[in-house]
């Protein structure tokens, strides 16, 4: 199911997220971050569940430092929820799947 999550970076953020016709969930993560690794499988499950309705992307803050600083992301894991080019919600820290579903359903 990992195939459902697009890897994005500072170069592709604009085209893949801001200009996306579908709502986008962006997972800011890094390999050194334990909680990021722990919620990875939950984000993958959600990507499978909302396939075709919501685009899921992940951004490695180590490789792409500009995008997180643009959104004042200074803690990970942070998920931002983007609709029509603007950030409508952001959640930091390990969050239960049900809570994430609730936020995603509001994007639809």
């Amino acid at each position, binding site marked *: 199911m990992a195939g459902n999550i697009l890897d994005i970076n500072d170069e592709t953020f604009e085209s893949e997220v801001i200009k996306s016709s579908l709502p986008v969930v962006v997972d800011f993560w*890094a390999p*050194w*971050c*334990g*909680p*990021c*690794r*722990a*919620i990875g*499988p*939950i984000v993958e499950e959600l990507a499978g569940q909302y396939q075709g309705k919501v685009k899921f992307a992940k951004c490695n*803050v*180590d490789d792409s430092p500009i995008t*997180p600083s643009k959104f*004042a*992301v*200074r*803690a*990970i*894991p*942070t998920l931002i929820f983007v609709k029509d080019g603007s950030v409508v919600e*952001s959640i*930091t*820290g*390990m*969050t*239960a*799947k*049900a809570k994430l579903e609730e936020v995603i359903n509001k994007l639809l």
Partner: protein
Amino acid sequence: MENVDYDLVIIGGGPAGLTAGLYASRARLNVLLIERVAPGGQVLITDHIENYPGFPEGLSGPELTDKLVAQARQFGLPIESEEVESLTLEGPVKIIKTSGREIRTHAIIIASGASPRTLHVGEERFQGKGLSYCATCDGPFYRNKTVVAVGGGDTAVQESIFLTKFASKVYLVHRRDQLRATKILQERALANDKIEFVWDSVVTGLDGFFGLESVKVKNLKTQEERTLTAEGCFIWIGIVPNAGFVGDSLEKDPWGFIITDAHMATSVPGVFAAGDVRNTPLRQIATAVGDAAIAAYSAEHYIENLKS
């Protein structure tokens, strides 16, 4: 004998819960472990564990979690992500209400751990925007920047030292005039020239526009207030038990930790507690796994007695 879904349900997937799961699976109990988000608990935010016996080179929290999960799964422990809402503990069959269902079980081990205590100075505004509880996760955002760390115990001191790998300066704000941390950690922190100690002081406010820009601190002896310019503020001022779902159904200490006896039995027969959620004099991975082994052993005997 009334029908149940499980002999034993373990609530929480940190080192205590996973160890209880390992022991219960090896005892061939019909057991389930439920975890709010994903296994690991507080150790997930620990970069380097150097006091867990058997690992002289140390290991990271995520590494230990992976090992514990693999070891428990090897004996067949099922792990599910569910959030517990409430418990009904009267009678021989206990009922656990989760976000999605009701689970009936003979015995319960509560190993739901604890969470970082918060400052209560309006930090919600800076959640993810300068405020943090995890140096491993967020330290790298503060390369060559100034940060504030709050606390004087093991976590505060160890993590402040870790932060100096990235930050150009760490103010360590502590309400007393000496640290509580283990001596070896104190020695390292006091010798670190990137750490500036702000003694006898507490944080009274956080300020910033998009993200955190400054931290206000007050000296408790002189009442003097001071503003520290910093983009990050890391809070390590202790923990609170994750025991809200327990309500008043079990005896707790004045801080809300669940009271147990030497067998890890709570005030209700068939309900056991292990790890940080318990009223214990020391909260370490080593003590959590010890509690858990006893709790699983006690639960096994409780269930055997019930069935015989």
